[in-house]
């Protein structure tokens, strides 16, 4: 089967256009979704006119509610122009539909699918498209001046368009019906709202009236209540019980607080013996005796004084009271008035206070913290019990600075006095640590912190003194342990070097012995070779000096002498260490490459300690390469100054390297990756470098091996802060040593 290519391509284009049209049509409902029927129809008619190159398209839309149908007509541009030229009129949609109805009946369903030459002489093809299943929505009429209209594809598009329009219109109709219902509902709601609002207004009015009445009532009520409250307040506020007795001890007055306190009504107690009513049975006899004695002798133990005693209530419960009794100054037989107050609460509070004081004293005792106050103006000093204990001073002695001075360690006395004077002047907070010396010679460390309070007229320091002797001694122990550890590490690292150092000493020693022997031989010869012997002796001396240098270097590294701060040339220090480890490196076939920077600034530090670190790094590097056979055992040692005022030393090896996880742990004490290592070298190195205010770290190489580096600050021009700090630490170490 053969297809002509041109035909085929025309066909393809046609189909493509068709599909495009179809897609355009199918897209229309998206535009319609919110529109009304007339807008819907306008867009549809325009689309059809354009797509199918129609000459005319008209629609009649039947509306069940509105009598007159909606009729729209669209005519192609070219038709409009022709009509204008021929001055013929454009038929309206109504005319077209009427004509069709007249010819074929009102039901557009029954109209023939294709009409020709219906109107005028032109060759026009007309296609009616009923809307709705029964044509009940209306009809679209399309017309084209073409004999072959509609083609198959055009029919398809037309029927799709008609279906889409039907669905769209039905939707629109449904929507408008819903809208109508909604509108009605709105209307009804509005009406109901208005009714409700009216009813509400009425209610409000009634409510306002009622409230007015209530307010009036309320004010009266409130007034009454207030007066009651006031009365109650007066009643309540009269806390003191007032009881009056006559010369026989019989009650003549018993006020409401007394009624309340003791649980008797006034009328129950009037005329009764006071003792029987409020004095506990155990004290009654004593009371009677005292009362009788007073009457007989005028000797009073209780009159005119505030006394505390125990009273009893009607329910026989006892409670503490504070009591003041006065004789009523009237003629005749004496009578007395007593004012009593229930002090149960006060007693409890007192007890509470005593307990908390006890707690405080106990906790001060346990924590070895004493507290004090010092009035600056008068030098009045108050100490807590614990503070007396710390100072080992008897509590009865009044505290003075002179007394305190006798307990302060002689070496710290001036420090203490300076602080007191300074506090007196600038009244700043105090933080000071000093030593006490007890009469038996024992030394205590105390830490004092105090701050000032009170007004400027009468300032007072309040503070705490803590006995930190134990802490200090454990710190000292720790520091000693640390220095012991450092020593162990040093000895260990040197132990490894012993052979190498023996070699270093043996070289000149060997020279000395040989020279001495040669010298003797030369002198013993006949004739004696005096010149040769002299020369040989000179060499002997030189070698002797060399040997002693090696030994003193060895002693410096090995010994435990306190670190000394000096300006150190790190290059020089490095060269010395390299010289010491030379033979070890040779033995291990390690190729050492030096890159020591020229004009390297001096660093402040302890030469021997820094050399220990370098030695350690070299040793580690050498050991890391001990198993390396497949590449050269290359070790690079490098010094350089960085721009931050540090000197950096780097040791790079081509050894086994390490994992990044290990890098964090390298510098911890007792961490080791070596089978025979103790894991102290690097931790000691770190503590040395840190005491020099430097930093030490390790990084894996890109290739095999690892790089260890440290930096320490250079000597600054104006006296180094690093120096002083290191010195402090240094003295700690030497104390401990």
């Amino acid at each position, binding site marked *: 089967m053969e297809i002509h290519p041109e035909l085929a391509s025309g066909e393809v284009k046609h189909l493509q256009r068709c599909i495009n049209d179809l897609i355009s049509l199918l897209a229309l409902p998206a535009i319609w979704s919110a529109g009304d029927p007339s807008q819907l129809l306008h867009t549809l008619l325009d689309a059809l006119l354009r797509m199918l190159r129609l000459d005319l398209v008209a629609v009649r839309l039947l509306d069940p509610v509105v009598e007159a149908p909606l009729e729209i007509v669209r005519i192609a541009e070219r038709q409009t122009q022709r009509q204008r030229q021929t001055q013929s009129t454009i038929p309206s949609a109504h005319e077209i539909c009427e004509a069709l109805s007249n010819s074929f009946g009102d039901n557009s369903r029954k109209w023939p699918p294709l009409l020709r030459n219906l109107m005028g002489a032109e060759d026009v093809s007309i296609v009616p498209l009923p809307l709705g299943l029964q044509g009940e929505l209306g009809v679209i009429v399309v017309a084209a001046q073409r004999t072959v209209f509609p083609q198959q594809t055009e029919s398809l598009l037309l029927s799709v368009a008609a279906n889409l329009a039907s669905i769209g219109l039905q939707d629109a109709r449904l929507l408008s019906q819903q809208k109508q219902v909604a509108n009605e509902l709105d209307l009804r709601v509005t009406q109901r709202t208005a009714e409700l609002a009216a009813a509400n207004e009425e209610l409000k009015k009634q409510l306002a009236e009622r409230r007015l009445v209530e307010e009036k009532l309320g004010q009266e009520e409130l007034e009454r209540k207030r007066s009651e409250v006031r009365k109650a307040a007066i009643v309540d506020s009269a806390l003191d019980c007032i009881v009056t007795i006559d010369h026989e001890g019989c009650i003549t007055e018993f006020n409401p607080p007394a009624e309340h306190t003791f649980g008797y009504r006034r009328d129950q107690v009037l005329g009764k013996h006071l003792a029987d009513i409020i004095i506990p049975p155990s004290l009654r006899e004593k009371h009677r005796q005292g009362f009788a004695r007073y009457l007989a002798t005028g000797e009073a133990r209780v009159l005119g004084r505030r006394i505390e005693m125990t009273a009893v209530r009607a329910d026989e419960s006892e409670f503490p009271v504070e009591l003041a009794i006065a004789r009523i100054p009237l003629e005749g037989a004496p009578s007395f008035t007593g004012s009593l107050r229930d002090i149960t609460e006060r007693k409890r509070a007192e007890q509470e206070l005593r307990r908390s004081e006890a707690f405080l004293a106990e906790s001060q005792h346990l924590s070895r913290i004493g507290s004090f106050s010092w009035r600056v103006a008068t030098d009045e000093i108050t100490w807590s019990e614990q503070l007396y204990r710390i100072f080992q001073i008897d509590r009865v002695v009044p505290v003075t600075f002179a007394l305190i001075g006798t307990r302060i360690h002689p070496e710290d006395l001036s420090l203490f006095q300076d602080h007191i004077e300074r506090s007196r002047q600038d009244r700043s907070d105090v933080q000071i640590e000093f030593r006490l010396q007890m009469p038996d010679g024992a030394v205590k460390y105390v830490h004092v912190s105090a701050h000032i309070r009170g007004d400027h007229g009468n300032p007072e320091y309040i503070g705490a003194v803590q006995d930190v002797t134990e802490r200090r001694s454990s710190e000292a122990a720790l520091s000693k342990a640390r220095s012991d550890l450092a020593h162990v590490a040093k000895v260990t690292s040197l132990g490894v070097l012993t052979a190498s150092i023996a070699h*270093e000493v043996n*070289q000149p020693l*060997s020279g*000395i*012995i040989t020279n001495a022997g*040669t010298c003797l031989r030369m002198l013993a010869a006949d004739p004696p070779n005096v010149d040769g012997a002299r020369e*040989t002796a000179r060499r002997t001396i*030189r070698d002797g000096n060399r040997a002693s240098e090696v030994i003193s270097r060895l002693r410096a590294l090995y010994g435990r002498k306190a670190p000394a701060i000096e300006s150190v040339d790190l290059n020089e220090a490095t060269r010395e260490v390299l010289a010491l480890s030379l*033979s070890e490196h040779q033995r291990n076939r390690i190729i050492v490459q030096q890159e020591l920077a020229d004009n390297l600034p001096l660093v402040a530090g302890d030469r021997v300690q820094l050399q220990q670190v370098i030695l350690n790094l070299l040793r580690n590097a050498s050991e890391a390469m001990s198993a390396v056979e497949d590449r050269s055992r290359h070790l690079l040692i490098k010094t350089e100054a960085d721009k931050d005022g540090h000197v950096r030393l780097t040791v790079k090896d081509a050894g086994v390297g390490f994992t990044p996880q290990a890098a964090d742990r390298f510098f911890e004490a007792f961490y080791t990756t070596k089978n025979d290592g103790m894991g102290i070298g690097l931790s000691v190195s770190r503590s040395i470098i840190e005491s020099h205010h430097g930093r030490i770290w390790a990084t894996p190489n890109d290739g095999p091996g690892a790089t260890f580096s440290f930096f320490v600050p250079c000597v600054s021009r104006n006296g180094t802060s690093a120096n002083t700090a290191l010195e402090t630490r240094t003295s700690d170490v030497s104390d401990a040593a």
Partner: protein
Amino acid sequence: MSDVAPIVFVVDDDVSVRESLESLIRCEGWQPMTFASAQTFLDHPRVRIPNCLVLDISLPGLNGLDLQRLVAEERTDMPIIFITGHGDVPMTVQAMKAGAVEFLTKPFKDDVLLAAIRAALERSRVALSLEAEMRILREHYASLSQRERQVMALVVSGLLNKQIGGELGISEITVKAHRGKVMQKMKAGSLADLVIMATRLRPAPAAIAAA
């Protein structure tokens, strides 16, 4: 040969050791030649007079044992005396196995070293004279004609002239003439001498071919 002072080579990287040994050796009437590294020593040509090497084990670059490995094979006339600052047993064993004559730990007594050097030089002298004899022997042997060599080989294997003649397809008279030439060229006084010479020549046929 004996009026030339024997040479004592010293290879040690330490200047004290080098210089002291130099003057000690000179004082004993030998010629000292000192080197600071194995490489500088190797660069120096070998000598044909009695000599020995005093070698430090720890050296930069090539160490003493490496150097021993390199020269022991070809310089049989140069005994090696090792000196070391830290001799350990495995290293000593290794050095001795490789042919070192002595292993001294620094510092050493000068007469101990001198005795070692003296012994080493004696050894060197023996080795050298042995070598000289062999060289002469090889020269004599090289002067033999093909036929004479065949005759010599059969003579030392114990055949009679007649049997040799039968073996080589020549007359007994001719064998006798060849045999006289051989004795003369090899400077052999007796058949026994010739047999000994042949034995000494046998272990190194390659050397014979080369000579």
